[in-house]
């Protein structure tokens, strides 16, 4: 519950103006760790792209994702708390150090989400915006970006929370009460947002 309050608070704090660019870390990441992370990312690139812009629809975009979210998911795949036919295989072979570094690599990118021209932030799914913003760029370390994900990917995750295949303090109660149509509407909203992933300036 406490985390849910924080989530709501995060939503309130961000409501004043949704930043198009999420700055994941104010400090400059360690260059050696980044280099190591890039090397680990070689095994991710066929599906997620070396820059974290997904190359296949079943994989999410992870460039510019909050580092804590990436670490948490990789560890969940590694321990079996979250299961996926491909990611379970990948994560089971990663050390904690590799997980930290590859998460650092993907999180160091800048990411932005741009709404389609004929839409307004006011139309964004209200249950989601507190943590994921209207443009699908996360406002919390514990929430993923949703901008530009394939709608079926988002729907699949929502259904996984609803059925208990995936568990999260905030998402489980939210998804439990959603209808299929509501899931589709939220998924469509975020999949229609244009995502851009770029190297941070000065690199």
């Amino acid at each position, binding site marked *: 519950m406490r985390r849910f309050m924080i989530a709501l608070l995060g939503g309130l704090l961000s409501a004043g103006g949704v930043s198009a660019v999420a700055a994941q870390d104010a400090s400059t990441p360690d260059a050696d760790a980044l280099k190591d992370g890039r090397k680990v990312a070689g095994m991710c690139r066929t599906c997620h792209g070396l820059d974290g812009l997904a190359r*296949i629809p079943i994989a999410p975009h992870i460039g510019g994702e909050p580092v804590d979210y990436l670490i948490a998911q990789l560890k969940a795949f590694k321990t079996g708390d979250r299961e996926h*036919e491909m990611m379970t295989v990948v994560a089971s072979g990663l050390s904690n150090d590799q997980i930290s570094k590859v998460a650092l690599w993907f999180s160091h990118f800048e990411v932005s989400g741009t709404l389609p021209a004929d839409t307004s932030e006011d139309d964004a799914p*209200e249950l989601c915006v507190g943590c994921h913003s209207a443009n699908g760029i996360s406002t919390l370390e514990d929430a993923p970006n949703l901008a530009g994900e394939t*709608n079926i990917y988002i729907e*699949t995750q929502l259904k996984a929370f609803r059925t208990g295949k995936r568990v999260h303090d905030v998402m489980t109660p939210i998804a439990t009460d959603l209808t299929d149509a509501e899931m589709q509407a939220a998924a469509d909203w975020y999949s229609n947002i244009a995502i851009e992933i770029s190297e941070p300036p000065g690199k």
Partner: protein
Amino acid sequence: MTKRLLMASIALAMSGTAYAQAPAPDNLEKLSNFQSTGTTEFTVIEQGGDYAEGIKKTLERIKLPDGFKIGLYAIVPDARHIAVGPQGVVTFVGTRKDKVWSVTDRNKDRVADEVKDFAPSLRFSIPNGPCFSSDGFLYIAEQNRVLVFPAAEFFYESPDVAAFNVVKQGDLIPTAEESYNHTARVCKIGPDGKLYISLGQPFNVAPEDKLDLYREWGIGGIIRINTDGTGREVYTYGVRNSVGHDFHPVTGELWWTDNQVDGMGDDIPPGEINHQTAAGQHFGHPWYGGGDVRTNEYAGQEVPYDVVMPAVETVAHAADLGMSFYTGNMFPTKYKNAIFSAQHGSWNRTTPVGARVMVTFIDAEGNATIEPFAEGWIDENDEYLGRPVDVAQLRDGSILVSDDLAGALYRIWYEGN
């Protein structure tokens, strides 16, 4: 307000959900009743331009046997499996997203002129697998539904096209078993006139507690049904994730590709092309991970079925997907009744393999040998420039290859020397 819409509104108001909004109108029901949905807009994909030039540059590096040429046929986003209209009017291409594309070569210069979405009023969900009957019925196998579009080749120009359930939403597999991965279904009509549909199982290795359920539904298998949706039976057992099949033009027997277990090493287990000679045969998953390599999860366990070993073992992790027997007259005679198949390319091998079109020759005794036919989509930095998904034959005897990374269809034709 129609009565139906009113009922839907009432149902929604009573559902007590967190936020209310209008339900999507059931356009399938309207199309089944030959009613208009009011949808008038198509999504049209621009052909040509810089994007096409980039793809053409990649195609310059593709190696083919002497006398063969490859060219860009169409820009088709997320292009997956291909169904060529039996009259040669239009080609349909599935995706792992929510669209099916119609591809038209109006001036018959063997390059498509128009690519637009098919039946835009319908919400598809992973419509990976379109297939045609010889009399022009288009079937589309989705995540958990199969639709039929009678005379699609002639009605596709309109946004509203007659559409009917073959297997209605939620009846292809139990909804609790739905997944996004291993859900690229393919379909073909067999010589018996039945619809054959592959159902991948969603795990790397199917767990023991799912095996009974999967066997009952044909998940991790291939099912066949009558084209009206009746008479469902499991035709093939022991499949991990098959994403390509076709019937031998002479024997009528089913051949199919299978993707094998990951995480056992770079070089095992092999991929497979299988040859099925009777209904109900078992091909080894999950006891076998590919070829005769046993899975770690079922190591040492007695295999409870007689298992058919693959007709062809392919390089490990290359991801053999779509396949078609060649029946055309354009290519040299040695290609007659050979299998053209696509290797999508590995995703977790240290050095990538695949991303090419293969050809498999089958001799009079049924022995099969495979060799590369078109390759060069992996560059010197081990980066994919394209990832072939499916192969289908045009009426002139040339073949189309789909690529879901570049988002394109290529055409390969024979000119001789």
